[in-house]
């Protein structure tokens, strides 16, 4: 049972040591860390489950005259052998499967790396140390249990008379409040940046709420059901409800663990999958034009020089420039308070108030959008890119400006979408651009003139495009311009490695968590089966038929199984909006794609779940009858 994680850890470590790309490596290291943490928790859990079952055995040994010293010795040898066997088996299968996994990763990331596969000593040693440590810890924990307990207690083991759980109304209320606040935050958050900071608060609240409600809420609900005499005194409900009250007392924590785990799995899978699938979309968002050049401190005359340089370079690389777009601009960060913007950043309270302002001269705007707008003194056009609704009167550093028109859509530099702060574009009268730029920023950033943006779609071979992107920056710099160029083709690779890595990690961890979830539930149900055996025997004597028993079991197992899943789905439904906001930060704005991915992962998860449910119910029935 422990082998699963074992080899996953092993092969992940193996991957980690070989993979190219520092980003990917950090990602995978993080993954290794998570899996390591997880295996500690999981092994402890299964261990406690096993030791409970074995208490009776140890008690008997003790009564038959074995000292605790001897029992400890027996346990030491036992865990030594299991550790050795599972480590060897785990590492071997890890070595084999890691090769497969590595190929899969390369495929996902679309890297052309030759496969120089070898066994990584470092990861072997790391894995061994980690698991030996875990085994030692569990062993110590078991020994502690044995030493503390008296023989009679050991003999009796788990069957101490259970008391009916009390309804903890305070906890119920706490649960409801935290959960609803969490949901509320998730629903009302609009700005992506705020989403980021608030998301964690919301997650925390929802986690607390989940625990509280599973622990107290379910019991309260079941007790209410029991009070409803008409509902309660029906064969199916009668057995189910009363059983569940006790079930929940023991399992509430476990079920909420499962619930949160599955939520995490679903979120992780759906986001990484949609990021990976939506990668082209994403590139398109990030790079509206395939190649973009920005040059700082450019006068109106110099723009022509730059343009001709770009055209020359493109010709040299056999690339045709299509749909060129250029404008001059200035951008600087401000602190936003409603409709007023202040350049002085000392008044900044939360990062969410930070806004990027980009000034574009009217001439350039008219040229670019093929319009002929005129502006009076103190008038501007405003394009609000991803920000709160703004009124028609704004103040910028104590200058009052009247918004003549709020522009609906505008082609802009993709960089804005990569920024996490809100962005506002102001189209101003030509000469005002420099005036509006805050004086203190002028010195800080060494800005003397406007910046120039030149973006175009390129037609040509992709490696030529990459070469062009690089040579553009170089040539312009040689000419004395502060230039920076970037291209979609050039970034594709790093995008693939980043999101491909995330995708791989998501699938990997997702699979691991699903497995863990399923195993936890399975063990839980089986151990409950043993506890319930007696109950069902009595009921059979009193006159419960086998068919009715089967029905009762089915509904009980069904509830235990699907309560966490349903709750997880509800969580996700509420989190959906915030997650789309967060994805927008990562340039993914295709909400329907994300929705489909979410639905897909939920479906797959549910199918897995359903299979395990069927297996468990059968196993449970076998034990009980």
């Amino acid at each position: 049972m422990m082998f699963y994680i074992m080899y996953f850890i092993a092969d992940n470590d193996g991957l980690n040591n070989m993979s190219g790309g520092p980003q990917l490596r950090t990602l995978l290291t993080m993954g290794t860390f998570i899996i390591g943490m997880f295996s500690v928790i999981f092994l402890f859990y299964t261990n406690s489950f096993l030791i409970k079952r074995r208490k009776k055995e140890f008690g008997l040994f003790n009564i038959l005259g074995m000292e605790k010293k001897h029992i400890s010795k027996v346990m030491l040898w036992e865990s030594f052998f299991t550790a050795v066997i599972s480590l060897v088996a785990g590492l071997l299968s890890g070595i084999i499967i890691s090769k497969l996994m590595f190929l899969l990763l390369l495929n996902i990331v679309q890297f052309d790396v030759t496969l120089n596969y070898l066994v990584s000593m470092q990861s072997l040693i790391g894995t061994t140390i980690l698991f030996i440590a875990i085994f030692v810890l569990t062993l110590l924990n078991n020994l502690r249990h044995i030493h503390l307990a008296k023989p009679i207690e050991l003999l009796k083991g788990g069957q101490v008379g259970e008391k009916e759980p009390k309804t903890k109304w305070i906890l119920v209320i706490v649960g409801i409040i935290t959960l609803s606040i969490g949901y509320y935050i998730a629903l009302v958050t609009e700005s992506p940046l705020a989403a980021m900071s608030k998301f964690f608060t919301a997650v925390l609240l929802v986690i607390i709420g989940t625990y509280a409600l599973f622990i107290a809420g379910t019991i309260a609900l079941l007790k209410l059901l029991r009070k409803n005499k008409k509902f309660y005194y029906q064969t199916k409900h009668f057995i189910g409800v009363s059983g569940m009250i006790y079930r929940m007392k023991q399992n509430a924590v476990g079920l909420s663990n499962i619930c949160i785990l599955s939520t995490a799995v679903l979120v992780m899978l759906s986001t990484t999958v949609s990021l990976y699938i939506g990668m082209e979309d994403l590139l398109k968002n990030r790079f509206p034009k395939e190649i973009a050049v920005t040059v700082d401190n450019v006068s109106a005359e110099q723009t022509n020089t730059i343009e001709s340089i770009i055209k020359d370079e493109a010709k040299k690389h056999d690339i045709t420039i299509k749909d060129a777009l250029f404008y001059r601009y200035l951008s600087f960060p401000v602190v936003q308070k409603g409709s007023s913007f202040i350049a002085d950043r000392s008044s900044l309270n939360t990062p969410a108030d930070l806004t990027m302002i980009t000034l574009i001269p009217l001439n350039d705007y008219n040229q670019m959008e093929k319009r002929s707008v005129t502006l009076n003194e103190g008038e501007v056009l405003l394009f609000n890119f991803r920000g709160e609704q703004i009124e028609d009167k704004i103040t910028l550093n104590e200058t009052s400006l009247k918004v003549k028109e709020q522009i609906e859509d505008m082609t802009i530099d993709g960089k804005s979408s990569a920024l996490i702060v809100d962005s506002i574009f102001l189209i101003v009268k030509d000469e005002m651009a420099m005036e509006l730029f805050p004086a203190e920023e002028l010195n800080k950033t060494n800005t003397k003139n406007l910046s120039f943006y030149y973006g175009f779609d390129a037609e040509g071979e992709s490696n030529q495009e990459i070469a062009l992107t690089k040579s553009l920056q170089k040539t312009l710099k040689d000419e004395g311009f502060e230039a920076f160029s970037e291209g979609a083709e050039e970034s594709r690779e790093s995008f693939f490695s980043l999101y491909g890595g995330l995708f791989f990690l998501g699938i990997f961890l997702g699979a691991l968590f699903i497995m863990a979830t399923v195993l936890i539930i399975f063990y839980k149900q089986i151990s409950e089966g043993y506890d319930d055996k007696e109950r069902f025997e009595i009921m059979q004597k009193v006159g419960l038929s086998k068919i009715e028993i089967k029905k009762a079991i089915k509904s009980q197992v069904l509830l235990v199984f699907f309560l966490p899943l349903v709750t997880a789905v509800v969580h996700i439904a509420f989190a959906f909006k915030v997650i789309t906001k967060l994805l927008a930060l990562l340039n993914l704005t295709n909400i329907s794609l994300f929705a489909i991915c979410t639905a897909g992962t939920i479906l797959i998860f549910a199918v897995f779940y359903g299979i395990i449910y069927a297996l468990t119910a059968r196993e449970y029935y076998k034990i009980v009858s």
Partner: protein
Amino acid sequence: MTILEVNNVKKVYTTRFGGNHVQALSDVSFSVEEGEYVAIMGESGSGKTTLLNIVASLDKPTSGEVLLSGKSIVSIKDKEISAFRRNNLGFVFQDFNLLDTFSLQDNIFLPLVLSGKSYREMDSMLKPISTKLRITDILDKFPYEVSGGQKQRAAVARALITNPKLVLADEPTGALDSRASDDLLKIFSDINDEGQTILMVTHSTKAASHAKRVLFIKDGMVFHQLNKGSMTNEEMYQKISDTLNIIATGGGRNE
């Protein structure tokens, strides 16, 4: 009228791989009339519990037949057997077999709920019985909160609430102290006086001495039979002790 008829019942247990045959009951025949109070006595391993299980339709005999009100319970289909048990038989067990997850009241309701009775109906049936068994005050308590005697009285209530034709009791005093035992036996006598037929398996002489008729089982056969007639409990006790002595000191198989 004969309520229960057991004819030539034989039960052989076979170990899993068919190697060993253990004969629990070799040839048992007896009958119980309506309103009777019959005790079956025998030492451990004499086949008492096997016999009771067969009568309770929890187990099937290897051969022979068991008739309840003239109807063979051996031939009842599996599907109907639970309902049959529920409607015709009441059970009292040595270890109470109350469910920890139910309050006493719900435990008593259990067979009724299984038959799909409404709450109102159940409640009206519960009242007279709980008064009679003096458990009205503790109905809302849970099994682990009350004493053994109270638990057993609740179990009796559960057995009686369906108005069964026959109450089967398996060592009902086995887990009780002497005061609670006396109490329970008195209850049994009382309900028997009201017309309830009872079949009790026990190895307590005292418990058996309250019965109107005592059957002795040895080595899987009915060995001897005692009728109480007009004897007092004490005289009956003496008589049973004597009989047990004879059996124990090897009275052999000469009936």
